[in-house]
Every structure is written in C-alpha cells, then in structure tokens.
C-alpha cells in the first residue's frame, strides 16, 4: 500500500472525465420533448382539482343556503369553519382540538415506534433465513388480512381499556406492512452488491449490517409510509369504539349530540393530518435515501 502513497495521480484522466461528461449531455440544439409539448398548454391537473374542490364547496354552500338539506344533516361551510374555530379555542368534550389531535398522534407515533422495533428485525429474519421465514410467515399472513377492529375487543380484554390497548391495536395494524416491506427490501438486495462485499472481505454479519440493511432502507421507509396510513385509519376507528380522548372520540361524541358541524370539522382535520403524515413520510424518504431513485 505504501506503493500508492508515493504515486502521482493520473492528471490526464481529469480531462477525459470532462470530455465524457460533455458527450453524455444532450446537444445544444435539441429541445426536450416536454418543452415542445408545453406550447400546446393543456390545463394543469392542479387547476382542475382546485376547481373541483371549489365547486363542491360552492354546491354545499348553495344547498345549505337554500335550505335544501336540514342544517342538522348538513351545516353550511361557514358553520363548519366556526365550529373548527371554537374547537381550537374552547374545545369539545373536555379537550381542545389540539389536545384531541395530540392524543391521537401520541398513540400513532407510540405504535409506530413499537412496530418499527419489532417489524424491522422480524422482516430481516424473514428475508435472510429460512427458519425465520418458516416461523414468521404464517403469523404475518394471518395478521395481514385481519381488520384491526376485529381483534380490538380481544386486545381490550387482554390489556385493558387504557392507552396500551389502542397502541397495541395500532401497532398490530402497522406491523405487517413494516415486516413485509423490510423482507421485500432484503430480498431485492442486488446480488452484485453482496458479492462485491464478499470479495472485499466481508463476513455474514458485516454483509447484513453494511449492505443488506442500508440497501433495504428505501423499502422500509415505504413500508413505514403505508403503515402510517393504515395506522391512522385504524386509530380513528378504534377511538370511535373505545376511547375518552382523541380525534375519533371527538367525532363520535359530537355525533351523539347531533353536533354535525363538529363532526364535519373533525373529518376534515382527520383528512388533513393523513395528508400531512404522508407528506412527512415522503420528505423523510427524500432526505434519508436520496439515492433510492438512482439505483
């Protein structure tokens, strides 16, 4: 190795690199196809979508203004906005909107941590060992198609009505997608990446830690994103059934008193949080694995 340290770099190669880069770029006169298409100027999809939302709100306003539907069933958009404001300021059933949302988020992130801690090792076991696959596959395949609310009553019997039961149910709902995405990531590791490591002196544990795991991270993050979506829908449903706080519980209580404006405001908040969670998960993917699209 001391050989190398005394050697001069091959400076001519730098020029060759520049030449190769230049060849790989498109010639100056060629216009990309997208630019040519832009001259036709079709209406952007975002504009169409915005118009759709505006139309729905418009029809909704019209229907409630004309008294087509009773306000008990369909309060006006204005009432819903006011209800939302009141939720933030004074709250409903002993808690403000943020406290309800906070309770729900606490549950979902608690469940996420639990399911990641269990799911990633389980996925690695399924993806790397026949024994692991043989043991865990039937369990995952049993759990995966089950609607989480089906085992919620059993979980309540086992761990009680408190936070633990909700977190357990959400974690169980999230677990299959995290396990399956981890094992799929492990199985899709490039054979050449593994062989390169072996020929560079890596042992089995090093291959797992230095090649298989990092290579699976994009797939694991996709699994986490899907799990968050599944977890959120399950959480709200679980709160409808058994909770004393949380955004699902808030809607359920409001419905019992026929406070429809709060119900609708709550539904909109649930949708917004779902979108936000998806956005955060995608942001995390871009930040942590910018290389995933360059394999």
């Amino acid at each position, binding site marked *: 190795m001391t050989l190398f340290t005394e*050697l001069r770099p*091959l400076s*001519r190669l730098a020029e060759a690199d520049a030449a190769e880069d230049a060849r790989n770029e498109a010639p100056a006169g060629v216009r990309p196809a997208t630019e040519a298409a832009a001259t036709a100027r079709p209406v952007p999809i975002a504009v169409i979508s915005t118009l759709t939302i505006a139309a729905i709100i418009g029809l909704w306003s019209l229907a409630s203004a004309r008294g087509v539907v009773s306000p008990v069933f369909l309060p006006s958009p204005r009432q819903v906005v006011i209800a939302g404001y009141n939720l933030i300021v004074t709250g409903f059933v002993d808690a403000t909107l943020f406290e309800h949302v906070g309770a729900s988020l606490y549950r979902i992130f608690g469940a996420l941590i639990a399911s990641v801690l269990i799911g990633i090792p389980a996925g690695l076991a399924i993806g790397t060992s026949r024994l692991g696959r043989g043991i865990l596959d039937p369990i995952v395949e049993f759990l995966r198609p089950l609607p989480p609310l089906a085992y919620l009553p059993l979980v309540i019997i086992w761990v009680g009505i408190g936070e633990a039961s909700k977190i357990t149910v959400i974690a169980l709902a999230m677990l299959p997608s995290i396990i399956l995405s981890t094992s799929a990531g492990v199985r899709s590791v490039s054979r050449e*990446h593994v*062989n390169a490591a072996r020929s560079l*002196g890596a042992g089995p544990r090093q291959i797992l830690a230095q090649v298989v795991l990092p290579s699976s991270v994009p797939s694991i993050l996709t699994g986490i994103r899907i799990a968050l979506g599944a977890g959120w829908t399950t959480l709200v449903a679980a709160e409808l059934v058994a909770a004393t706080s949380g955004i699902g519980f808030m809607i359920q209580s409001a419905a019992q008193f026929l406070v429809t404006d709060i119900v609708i405001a709550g539904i909109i908040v649930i949708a917004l949080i779902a979108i936000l969670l998806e956005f955060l998960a995608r942001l995390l993917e871009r930040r942590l694995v910018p290389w995933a699209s360059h394999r």
Partner: protein
Amino acid sequence: MSILSFRDVSLRYPPRPGSRAAGNDRLVLDGINLQVASNELVAIIGRSGSGKTSLLNLAAGFIAPTSGTIAVDGVPIPGPGADRAVVFQDDALYPWLDARDNVAFPLKLKGMPRATRQARAQQLLELVGLGDAGDHHVWELSGGMRQRVGIARALAAEPRFLLLDEPLGALDALTRTRMQEFLLRIQARSGAGAVLITHSIDEALILASRVLVLSPHPGRLTAEIEAGFSAEILAGAATEKVKASPLFKRLHDGLTSLIHSLPNEEAAA
C-alpha cells in the same frame, strides 16, 4: 509473488428446470488449467455463453467447482476473500455511500478507524485521478469515473489478484480507450495480478501479457497467446501506434478467425 491456479477445474450446472432430457445437466467449464502470477495481467476472451463469467466467479469463490481445485499459492480458496477483489461490469458501488466511503468500504470491514480509512481512501481516489470526487454521490459520476471508483475500492482491499469482469464493457468507445491505458498502469503499479474477462480482442491484446481463448460448450481453454504490447505501452509507446503495428494486426486477425471458427451459442442450442 503469489500464484492463482486452476487445476482440472470443471463446472456443471444442474439441468434447467422443465428440461425433459434426462441427465441433461450443463457442463459449463471442462478441464480448466490456468496459472496467473501476481505480476501479470491475463485476459480471457470468448463469445458470450462460453463460461467466461463462470470462470471468474469460480476464481472469486462466489461459486464452487464441480471438480478440480482453485488455489492461491497452493492453498485451496475457502470462498470469496479480500485477496481476490472483483471489479464488476456495472461497478456494484454502494449508492448510499459517497465515492470516498465506497473506496473506504474494505478498510471499514477490517475495522480501520474512520479518520485513517478516509485518508487512505482519499489517496486511492487521487491515484485514480478522482481526488476531487470524494464527496460526490456515486450516481453523480460518469460511467468511467464510477468504474475508477470501483477499481480504487478493489485496490483498497490490498488484493493479491484483481478479478476484472468486463469492467470497461459498459463504457463508450472513447472513454474505454482511456480506461484501458489507465487500467494497465494501475495494475502494473499495484503489484497485484489480474484476470480480465473481455469480449474485446483489442482490449485483451493491449492489456494482457497473455491472452487465453475460451471455447464454448463446454468452456475449454483452447489457445494461448503471449502478447507483449502491454509492456510496450507501459514503456511509453502510444496505444494507437501499437495497434497499427503489423504484429498486432496479425494477432488480432488470427484471434478473430479463431473465435469465429468456434461453435457459437446459437449453433449449439
């Protein structure tokens, strides 16, 4: 001086699933005898399907021979190892690591502290003319640059043999010519022996001190040529001039007609 040797090595794959013919297993390599010293570059040429890559995978230890022995200095190889570092055609760099960490990868496996291995990796990057590229993601680099990172990574393992699996096969023609000279010099400097698998007769003649021809179905080493062109280029002769010499042309034509006279994959299938 180390010797990588193949003794009576044969490789047989089980029959393709669904194949009706009983006992129709495929003999890929038959009776391969080969010695490569750690100061030479041996090229193996042959058509696709002749078992070139299988031969390299055997040398790397990725697969085990059906019969025969592969050894380094008389000791049978136990499997893949850092004494035989492979450079792959599609570079097999790790996209989650930057160029420097890719080169430092074998050093990390050895447990070298981060600062030390980064400094060593930087030296190797400078050696391959990529001193400024250490912080770049590998996907930001051109094909030729990536391949040099791959070679630097293999050298970081301080191998006794470099196993080069068509490392220049995916490069454009101009880059490929540059890289051939580069590969020649780097191998001579590294003190490691090399086995180069290639389709290109040109490339084999320029780079190798010996060119072996692998005939297909089953793969057998059928011809061996001593080529001195690499020594001329290392001594300073221009590659283009060497390629224009009558001897180069004669050997090139001879190898071309030899390879064309061998049965090809379509005829055998």
